[in-house]
């Protein structure tokens, strides 16, 4: 039934790849229909990035490369004129026009459609008028104007210099008319314009993609297709790769973390991912407000031995944070003034804690909440034990049965004490870490600022950084803004993880990108 079966056990042939060989990759079952404006988790996104070609795509380092964009012009980072390349078609033969983009974006933003990626359009003018749940389904954003078949104009609510970088994200892909005619059927059998097209999607088993011969962008496939196989257990996927049944695995199971580099040799992959793990404490938490609260946050941060935890619990698959972003995106720094607060220092931790005690005694105990379904218990206990030893306070982990219940407690603000969180960047930009997590605009239930950090000074710097005209300037201001975060510590950065992945000797040219995905199109496989 599926092409991958025939590849078992064949090995040893020399030379380059075959243009017909289908590369098998592990995947999780998509949690939403396969629609670009309605997919938010990796199971769906892994497939969709190969089916669609937006204005840009990202190369290995996270730099935007032109897909359909002919040019994106702006004078003030607020008004953009976007021209697309001529002659592109969807796989059903329909031409891709400026209208295909504008229709898709308007659809994604409209509250009546309830698309999960709608917040990607919130910086476009007119978003506020269409995003309410009871919006007129035919309402469109005033910031989008089609000029002609190949040109459209975008007006943003404010100057945002990283807007073009964002355009490589899957939510900004064009959609054909076929989608609007039958959204439900389309979600099961999407029609795209990307390097691959969907052959079949067998639910809970696999999604098979073949090369789209009409694709003329930069991601020209060097293989004959992709087969995304759903594995219920990463352990099984890893064993399958060892036996030659799977070519590329993007997650090494916990049990093989310490041994996979020996087992795979130079076919083991380890690279910083665009993620950060941290824990947040609500700004109004009684023990953590005001001057005493700030000192207490700093004391706790300094009482965490990140390096030891990364080495012993994560076997080096994570590295201690030195700022609020990940080295996978531009602007990461190990020398932001004030970042010593992220370094382990028992004496300083004690000193800061006592200073806080002098202002306002600690009620306690310190709790760190986590979801028990996500293998967090070990490091949570390590941190709590560290706090007990260094600060002499009572500290304990507080487990929620699953991610759903932890999430409900954090978004509902019923949680007390510290709670674990993590962030995966949607597009390779420093501001995709800072804005959604720490800006006032994302506080009070409007985004992921679950600690309700509202600092006008920080907001202003974010705004300034986003409207800066040069990237260098923009990154510099972003780093300055992080100095405020290092002082206030609304979230306490812990570590960023490395993608731990690997591949079988059946394939070559396997490289992982900034977003921890393999660069699909360039993988070669012996037939």
């Amino acid at each position, binding site marked *: 039934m599926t092409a991958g079966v025939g590849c078992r056990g064949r090995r040893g042939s020399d030379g380059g790849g075959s243009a017909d060989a289908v590369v098998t990759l592990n995947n999780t079952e998509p949690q939403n229909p396969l629609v670009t404006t309605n997919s938010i988790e990796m199971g769906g996104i892994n497939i969709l990035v190969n089916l669609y070609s937006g204005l840009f795509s990202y190369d290995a380092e996270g730099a935007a490369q032109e897909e359909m964009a002919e040019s994106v012009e702006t004078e003030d980072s607020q008004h953009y004129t976007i021209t697309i390349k001529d002659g592109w078609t969807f796989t059903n033969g329909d031409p891709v026009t400026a209208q295909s983009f504008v229709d898709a974006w308007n659809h994604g933003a409209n509250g009546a459609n309830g698309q999960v990626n709608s917040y990607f359009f919130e910086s476009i003018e007119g978003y506020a008028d269409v*995003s309410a749940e009871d919006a007129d389904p035919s309402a469109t954003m005033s910031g989008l104007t089609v000029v002609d078949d190949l040109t459209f104009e975008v007006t943003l609510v404010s100057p945002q210099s990283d807007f073009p970088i964002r355009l490589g994200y899957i939510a900004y892909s064009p959609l054909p008319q076929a989608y609007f005619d039958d959204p439900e059927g389309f979600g099961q059998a999407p029609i795209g314009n990307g390097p691959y097209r969907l052959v079949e999607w067998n639910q809970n088993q696999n999604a098979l993609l073949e090369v789209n011969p009409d694709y003329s962008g930069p991601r020209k496939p060097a293989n004959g297709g992709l087969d995304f196989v759903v594995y219920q257990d990463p352990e099984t996927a890893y064993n399958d790769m060892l*036996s030659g049944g799977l070519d590329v695995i993007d997650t090494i199971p916990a049990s093989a973390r310490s041994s996979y580099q020996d087992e795979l040799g130079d076919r083991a992959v380890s690279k910083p991912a665009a993620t950060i793990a941290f824990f947040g404490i609500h700004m109004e938490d009684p023990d953590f407000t005001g001057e005493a609260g700030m000192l207490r946050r700093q004391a706790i941060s300094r009482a965490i031995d990140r390096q030891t935890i990364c080495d012993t619990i994560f076997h080096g698959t994570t590295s201690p944070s030195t700022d609020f972003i990940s080295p996978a995106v531009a602007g990461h720094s190990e020398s932001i003034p004030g970042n010593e607060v992220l370094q382990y220092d028992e004496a300083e931790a004690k000193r800061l804690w006592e200073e806080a005690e002098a202002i306002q005694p600690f009620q306690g105990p310190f709790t760190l909440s986590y979801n028990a379904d996500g293998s967090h218990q070990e490091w949570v206990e390590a941190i709590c034990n560290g706090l007990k030893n260094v600060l002499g306070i009572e500290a304990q982990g507080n487990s929620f049965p*699953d991610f759903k219940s932890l999430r*409900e407690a954090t978004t509902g603000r019923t949680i007390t004490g510290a709670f674990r969180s993590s962030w995966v960047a949607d597009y390779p930009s420093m501001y995709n870490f800072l804005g959604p997590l720490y800006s006032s605009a994302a506080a009070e239930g409007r985004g992921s600022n679950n600690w309700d950090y509202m600092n006008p000074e920080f907001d202003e710097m974010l705004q300034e950084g986003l409207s800066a005209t040069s990237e260098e300037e923009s990154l510099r201001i972003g780093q300055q803004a992080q100095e405020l975060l290092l002082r206030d510590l609304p979230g306490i950065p812990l570590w960023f993880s490395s993608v731990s992945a690997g591949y079988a000797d059946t394939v070559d040219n396997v490289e992982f990108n900034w977003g921890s995905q393999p660069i699909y199109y360039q993988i070669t496989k012996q037939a």
Partner: protein
Amino acid sequence: MTWYVLRRVLQMIPVFFGATLLVYFMVFFMPGDPIAALGGDKPLPEAAQARLREEFNLDKPFLVQYFLYLANIFQGDLGSTFRGQSISGQLADAFPITIRLAIIAIVFEAVLGIAAGVISGLRKGTWIDTTFLMLSLLVIAVPTFVLGFVAQFVLGVQLRVMPVNVGRDPSWENLLVPGMVLGAVSFAYVLRLTRTQVAEVAAQDHVRTATAKGLPRHRVVSAHVLRNSLIPVITYIGIDLGMLMGGAIVTESIFNIPGIGFHLWDAIRAGENTKVVTIVTLLVTVFVIANLIVDILYALLDPRIRYVSKS
């Protein structure tokens, strides 16, 4: 007899309603908000949450949700998952696979378990009996997932005589090893149960009489010993069919088999109430039917048990 079967079938109706209500109740009060969790650490826009809640009736009170679910079921509509796939279609794909797996497990545990149990029981105290007992103890002591991963690693990764990812092609041949892993623990129980029964029956007077009147040994064993010692074993195997279908969660996950167990686990994780309830109800139905078949088999095995209608 017909009346008895009919009565038992009618009894399944309250069982069906009781099971759905109970399971729905439990799933409804599971902690956490499945919709909010759909986006992972990213917030899901209010409008998207509202659309999904409305679509899946999650915005309604418990009893309303339950009756809407029942109404849909009686119209033959099992609903769809959060990702828009039809649940009935998924189950139609998954059930045959799990049934195949369960049949392999049942045949394995029944044939080998009873055979080994009879040998063990007839040769109580010999080395072969001791070997079987040790073997069964070992199988009971080792958790299924350990057995599964060991089998997978040795047979799939090292010897490469079976695929690691059985879900790719769940044929009878490929399901053989997973089926044996699934039935392993029951095999051990069947062995021990049969052994005890056979040993006990073999020491009874009527067996001695049969042997004394010169019946050949195979007649004594099959007609006098086996038939009288199988009733508890049949009961166990019958009930086990239901257990195996539910217990397939672990085995199916190790060998990546897209069967009922996988769907159940997936639905529990995703908080897809209606799917959980539907699967559990189906499992309950299988359980009840298996029990009914066991009760009918009693009559065939033991003429002393008669199902007569009270007139």
